[in-house]
């Protein structure tokens, strides 16, 4: 133990460090950092017959080279494999159990998609090799674009954004470019109070002032408030649909009409497209731009926090402003327009180096082709069915802010039922870990007190939904029985107990250092 009171496992302690008697700890090892495993002058890679340091004598890089190798440990392959497998066992994953994070869409990731993304013809091609040698890759991107445009009912697309928030920025920059092309310097974007944090953050990054739109008592955009704020300085209205309360904005066509009448564009946050894919085309709702999270609706793996992909579908009014690169089909072959000149003169610029997330495109297209037009529609229906089933099964024990009518793909609860029990939303969620489940999204949307947002997705069998609902009902009964201790200290059976996040922020320790 060091001065700060932190127990630092050392090599000698790995197999003997106490696990506090927590159930579930059998065969699980406490695992030091790689920096505590030694190997400072070693490497786990063989380079036989290669030039050594002595051969560098003749280099013309004198004065530009570092005095010594970077001070980082190297581990042999068996040590490395064991280290990261041990670490992996401390993670929850969708492959282990239902992962009910509302707004995040944790659904099964088909392994076929992983296999296809690793074909040398996709994995081992360079973004700047001659286009004549990557016609298959461009055809794949063009096909993906066709599927996304058809599902969205919109005529144009920018594939390159690398994540949802990056797609939001792309959409808003297209809107900005469209206004600027008319010499219109609008400065405001309207965002509902229930929006994802990325919406106002993106609007600010795109140079706009953010004005919030109120929400009605039943969880929808307040049309009166919207109409009152749609003055000539408004560049865009950003609405999530289905919204973050898990409800379809039933007035969406009117929102579009009001927005367009004010000379503004209608941006849709497509994070929840999985609830309506194949049943509703956003283009039919009057939307001008919408990002599609391929890692949500089209099931590319979340990977512990990325990489994602956020292509943006665009209306005819915004098509000319799409960022480069553009894929074009000329004379029976595909080509890339990589400069914002000539045909792409109006393009808003470039969102990133190269052409976007090819590895994610392969996976998403494989997912779409596997489901087909019929299956994608079934995806939306089963996602909505599963959420409503959870909502129905839990409705008797937990309170809902918007109990009337069905939800879309996620069921939203609040914390009124916890009032006076001494248990908070956070406590309840942490106790779910001991019951074998990842917590739901908590305290979001911000407009609902103590929010608990549950998104089961369409890839959960009914058996798993029942297991999940049974576990939550049992926990809810324990709350009512006054078993507060079960919640206050939870989780008890996870690899670690609750972590001190205040300490982490007050005294940031963001890297390992030798003590």
């Amino acid at each position, binding site marked *: 133990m060091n001065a700060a009171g932190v127990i630092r496992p050392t090599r000698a302690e790995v197999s003997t460090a106490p696990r506090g008697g927590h159930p579930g700890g059998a065969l699980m090892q406490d695992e030091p950092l790689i920096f505590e495993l030694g190997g400072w002058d070693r490497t786990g890679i063989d380079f036989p017959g290669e030039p050594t340091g002595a051969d560098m004598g003749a280099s013309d890089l004198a004065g530009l080279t570092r005095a010594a190798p970077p001070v980082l440990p190297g581990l042999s392959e068996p040590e490395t494999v064991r280290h990261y497998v041990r670490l992996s066992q401390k993670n929850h994953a969708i492959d282990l159990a239902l992962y009910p994070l509302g707004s995040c869409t944790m659904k099964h990731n088909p392994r076929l998609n992983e296999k296809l993304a690793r074909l040398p013809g996709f994995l081992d091609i360079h973004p700047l090799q001659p286009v004549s040698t990557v016609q298959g890759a461009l055809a794949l991107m063009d096909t993906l674009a066709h599927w996304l445009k058809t599902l969205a009912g919109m005529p144009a697309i920018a594939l390159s954004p690398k994540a949802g928030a990056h797609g939001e920025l792309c959409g808003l920059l297209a809107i900005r470019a469209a206004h600027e092309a008319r010499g219109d310097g609008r400065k405001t974007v309207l965002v509902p109070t229930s929006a994802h944090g990325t919406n106002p953050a993106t609007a600010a*990054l795109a140079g706009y002032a953010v004005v919030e739109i109120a929400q009605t008592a039943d969880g929808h955009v307040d049309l009166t408030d919207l109409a009152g704020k749609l003055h000539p300085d408004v560049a865009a209205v950003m609405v999530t649909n289905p919204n973050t309360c898990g409800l379809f904005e039933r007035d969406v066509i009117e929102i579009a009409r009001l927005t367009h009448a004010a000379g503004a564009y209608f941006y849709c946050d497509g994070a929840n497209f999985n609830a309506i894919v194949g049943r509703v085309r956003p283009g039919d709702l009057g939307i001008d731009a919408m990002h599609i999270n391929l890692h949500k609706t089209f099931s590319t793996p979340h990977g512990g926090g990325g990489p994602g992909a956020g292509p943006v579908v665009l209306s005819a009014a915004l098509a000319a402003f799409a960022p480069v690169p553009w894929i074009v089909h000329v004379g029976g072959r595909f080509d890339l327009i990589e400069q914002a000149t000539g045909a792409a003169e109006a393009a808003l610029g470039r969102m990133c180096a190269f052409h976007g997330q090819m590895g994610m495109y392969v996976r998403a297209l494989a997912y779409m082709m596997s489901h087909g037009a019929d299956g994608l529609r079934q995806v939306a229906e089963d996602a909505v069915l599963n959420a409503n089933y959870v909502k129905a099964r839990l409705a008797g024990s937990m309170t809902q802010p918007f109990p009337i009518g069905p939800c879309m793909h996620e069921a939203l609860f609040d914390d009124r039922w916890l009032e006076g029990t001494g248990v908070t939303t956070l406590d309840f969620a942490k106790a779910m870990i001991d019951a074998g489940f990842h917590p739901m999204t908590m305290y979001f949307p911000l407009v609902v007190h103590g929010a608990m947002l549950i998104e089961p997705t369409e890839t959960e069998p009914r058996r798993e939904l029942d297991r999940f609902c049974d576990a939550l009902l049992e926990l809810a009964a324990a709350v009512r029985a006054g078993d507060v201790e079960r919640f206050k200290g939870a989780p008890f059976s996870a690899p670690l107990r609750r972590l001190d996040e205040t300490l982490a922020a007050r005294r940031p320790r963001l890297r390992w250092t030798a003590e």
Partner: protein
Amino acid sequence: MRYLPLSDTDRAEMLAVIGASDIDTLFADVPAAARLAAPVDLPAHAGEMAVERALGVLAARNRPAGAGPFFCGAGAYRHHVPASVDHLIQRSEFLTSYTPYQPEIAQGTLQSLFEFQTQVAVLTGLPTANASMYDGSTACAEAVMMAARVTRRRKAVLSGGLHPHYAEATRTFAHSAGVDVRRLAAAIDAEDAVVPAIDGQTACVVVQTPNVFGAVTDVTAIAAAAHAAGALLIVVTTEAISFGLLKSPGEMGADIAVAEGQSIGNGLNFGGPYVGLFACREALTRQAPGRLCGETVDAEGRRGFVLTLSTREQHIRRDKATSNICTNSGLCALAFTIHMTLLGGTGLAELARINHARARALRAALAAVSGVEVVTPRFFNEFTIRVPRPAADVVEALARRDIIAGVPVSRLDPGAGMDDLLLVCATEMTTREDIDDFAEALAVELAV
């Protein structure tokens, strides 16, 4: 349908529990005018074999780097990735987990991010690194925005040696935020023009080394000039293997270092997904974009890791956030960390020397070709040659001989008047035979 577990019986019984007569009832809020009565006009569902066959056909219409001589670099590099790296990142617990918001059940992701941050900090020679960005180019754009916030100035100077895609992405981000981006003229030795462009309004100077033409520069003097003017120095590196051989950005005085981390652990992937590295001086940490992983303790005093300093981030700060970034490039960062763990500092240094040696061998072979001039004086593993014809034509001609000869500068920067320049790269994957084949084919082609 193989990914959808519900049976029709399940669906009927669940609708009964819900109290809905049919599935359409659950979509009642959708305006009637927008309800699709039938599936959209796309093919119906396909079996695993059919999908594999269809995408296999598309894959076969591309020429993989490994299929023959290959010399492209310019921001994306072909390196060997050990088999264990891809095996480990495909572990379900890494591949199919979410952003680690619940640290008690995400220590695997969090501890590996802490290791990643430490590795990036050491490689860049700076105290703090974040948990990764989308890629090098967006990391560069975010760094410029950060510098504008820190200095409260609105002008950024980009060296003419910065990768044109990075410059364009930065300009695109900065334009709407009101940051004026001045990109200096492209030149092999573009860094020489940077210091005179710095003035009292400059928020930051962005310099790439090795630069987009492959030239390696010591930026220490640029750092001094930037700091004297109250500006920050952002050093960009597109080839992370170079950290094994060259002076680190921190050692040369960088305030922020950004890099493309693809070379370590990640394949070419036609340009993405990649992993952006972002490191900075300690005093700037609270202005940094993106996720940060920090050490703390659990309720029993045991060490653990959490995402921290999140008051910078969009989900807390909304329109006052330091960035709109929500995700990072988690799995690519994990691949980086695992590969880097196998390499260690000494392995990276050796790999870097091998890369440099291969590039010198390539220089010797190409310099001997009549009509070819090597124009990059001091380079790491890529350099620029001048050919007596448009480089794009030469590349096309060699592609017909199944040699992928490199990247014509005109493809990156058509307006620079550098149509006769060709960027070529060699790595540990480049064999003696590849080099000889290239030189021989180039000689034949230029003799025509």
